[in-house]
């Protein structure tokens, strides 16, 4: 297994080599992680009372972030579909990077769940045989199952592809392709199961709408790949990674359709709530207009909508889609828009007013911000490390020693067995 040791040593070498901007970025992430650790130690000591969650709003910032990141993880599929289903070469070369993002996002998801639990030391209670998972009734057991399965699948795919490419060997299409195609329904299922977690609760009329699962998929697909678009531009400049403009534009075009669907489904929900105007309107009203003097979320609601609409226009119009300045602006806007929508726009109004009609205006504490920063730090660090290893492999500069000289043409490595 000297090949593996050599590979790992090579990985370490890749990760520890970098220019000033790279180390500044790593330093920033480590600082965020340090903040997270400090904040978590406060929470571990005092209990979750260190957050602003209370009985009335018992899920908030952490679960909002979790929901958003499951969407990001699911969105990796947006690259996989054109790459492997339609065999579209420009994206095929970079689809693996989407899977790396999925892995990082899933790690962040699992961390957010852990920091939200009152007794994370008892997480084994959800594991079969040693624990007693309430499967199939509990949606959270399904969520744990599909998220871990999707993580495992992505790790297997990524490690297999990268290791084979590193070795300069073609991958076995009969093994690889079915797994990749499997990741499509798995990605949809992770986000659908997460949606069902909220959807199934009759106690929360704001969530108890059939439209929730489709909305989740639409918002995931229109926000997740924006990280990829920015990343590809960074890689093109930093590594001279040959990513064609068409690949980036195609992703943006697919995102535009998802954005339309997202806005359409939002419109459908708003129609139903405002037109029927039952007592269930209160939750929607709290988010968009406020109730009484309680208007905490209102500015964010309209900011999110404005961001999403502007981003949609920027992505839809080919001229702005193809100009990288407006494209990147659109990416930031849609990321912000969906982030607000999934966090503040989904979780908090679901709890406000409470089941007994009372209003608790929630806003996160410093501890919650700190822990969230730490989790994002971990996730982006994982992503950075994975990309730092993957890109040299894909580009061809990081290969197994015995293949280093007279390296094969790059299209044979990372290509299917003929």
């Amino acid at each position, binding site marked *: 297994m000297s090949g593996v040791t050599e590979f790992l040593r090579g990985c370490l070498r890749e990760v520890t080599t970098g220019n000033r901007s790279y180390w500044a970025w790593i330093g920033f992430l480590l600082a965020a992680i340090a903040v997270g650790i400090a904040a978590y130690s406060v929470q571990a000591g005092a209990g979750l*009372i260190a957050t602003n969650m209370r009985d009335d709003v018992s899920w908030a910032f952490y679960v909002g972030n979790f929901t958003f990141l499951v969407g990001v993880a699911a969105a990796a599929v947006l690259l996989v579909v054109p790459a492997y289903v339609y065999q579209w070469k420009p994206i095929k070369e970079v689809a693996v990077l989407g899977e790396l993002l999925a892995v990082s996002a899933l790690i962040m998801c699992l961390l957010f769940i852990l920091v939200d639990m*009152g*007794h994370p*030391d008892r997480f084994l*209670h959800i594991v079969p045989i040693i624990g007693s998972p309430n499967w199939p*009734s*509990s949606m959270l057991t399904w969520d744990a199952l599909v998220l871990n399965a999707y993580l495992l699948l992505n790790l297997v795919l990524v490690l297999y592809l990268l290791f084979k490419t590193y070795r300069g060997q073609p991958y076995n299409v009969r093994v690889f392709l079915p797994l990749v195609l499997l990741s499509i329904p798995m990605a949809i299922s992770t986000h659908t199961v997460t949606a069902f977690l909220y959807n199934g609760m009759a*106690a929360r009329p704001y969530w108890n709408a059939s439209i929730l699962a489709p909305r989740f998929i639409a918002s995931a697909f229109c926000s997740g790949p924006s990280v990829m678009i920015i990343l590809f531009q960074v890689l093109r400049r930093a590594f001279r990674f040959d990513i064609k403009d068409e690949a980036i534009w195609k992703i943006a075009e697919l995102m535009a359709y998802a954005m339309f669907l997202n806005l359409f489904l939002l419109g459908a929900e708003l129609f139903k709530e405002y037109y029927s105007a039952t007592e269930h309107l209160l939750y929607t009203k709290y988010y968009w207009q406020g109730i009484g003097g309680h208007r905490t979320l209102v500015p964010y609601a309209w900011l999110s909508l404005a961001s999403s609409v502007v981003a949609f226009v920027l992505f839809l119009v080919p001229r702005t889609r193809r100009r990288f300045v407006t494209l990147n602006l659109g990416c930031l806007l849609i990321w912000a828009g969906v982030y607000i929508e999934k966090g503040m726009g989904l979780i908090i109004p679901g709890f406000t007013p409470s089941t007994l009609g009372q209003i608790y205006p929630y806003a996160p504490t410093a501890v919650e911000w700190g822990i969230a920063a730490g989790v994002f730090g971990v996730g982006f660090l994982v992503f950075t490390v994975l990309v730092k290893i993957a890109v040299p492999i894909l580009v061809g500069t990081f290969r197994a020693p015995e293949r280093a000289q007279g390296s094969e043409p790059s299209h044979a490595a990372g290509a299917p067995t003929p």
Partner: protein
Amino acid sequence: MTSPRLPLLRSGEPSPRHPEEAVAGEALSPGRRAFLRTAAAGAAMAALSSCGTGVEEFFQKHFKELKPDELARVLARIERRNRERFGRDTKVGAEGPRAGVFFGYGLDISRCVGCRRCVYACVRENNQSRRHPQIHWIQVLEMEKEHGVDLSHADLYYEADAVPRPGKFYFPVQCQQCRNPPCVRTCPTGATWKEPDGIVVIDYNWCIGCRCCMSACPYGARHFNWANPTLAAEELNPDEHYLGNRPRPKGVVEKCTFCIQRTRRGRYPACVEVCPVGARKFGNLLDPESEIRRVMETKRVFVFKEELATQPQFYYFYAT
């Protein structure tokens, strides 16, 4: 034979004090000194235990899987912990349900005056955290007669010098012990389940604190220990049940258990006994001559949020 000891109405008893009410420079009474001593000891214990639970507790199985000798050891360990934490002897039981018993609860909203005696009797009986966080298993809503049972016109935080206030009526809510409980359905670890006598219980040593059940409960009946419960030694009720009122750790969910430590021994729950107007009725639904059956057969009975099909064992009615 003397009549059974009547529970005190506590109408004149000083209400639970908020820390802001403490007067600076006031000489410490012996009770308060003991409280602070216990609190300091408790804080030290909490700091130590926040790093992790004991090894034995970590490996403890789910309540339903415990063999009798294992259960006895678990109960003994809890009594030991109580002695460490509170310096008092307690008796922690684990009585099972009785055959032929299925509890029913009746609440007469033509009688409730909103005095909240039930709220605090429950707190005292069931060892809830008093102030950090403050946990009330019973929540009394003040509603308007003009609007009826309408949550958009309900006030949990009403204050008054005298109740009932004109034009208002009162609607207490606690765990409805649903026959079709959404909390049980959604719990990922099976830490909460419905017992044969109808009580929905929680194994506090199995709960992971994910709070899915709290999102799923339509009645806001489940409460979370956001911090280590604030419970002074002299406030402790030593008569305890493993699934009921034993002092809880931080990070777990709790809720009304129909005073399982009392009702499984044949007594009324604390809220039923303390209610000064007799608005609360309790008994065995399977006994045709019980008070609750008589209520259901003679009065107009309804359940809260019936459209959710939770089928509660908690019935609201109007006696007149």
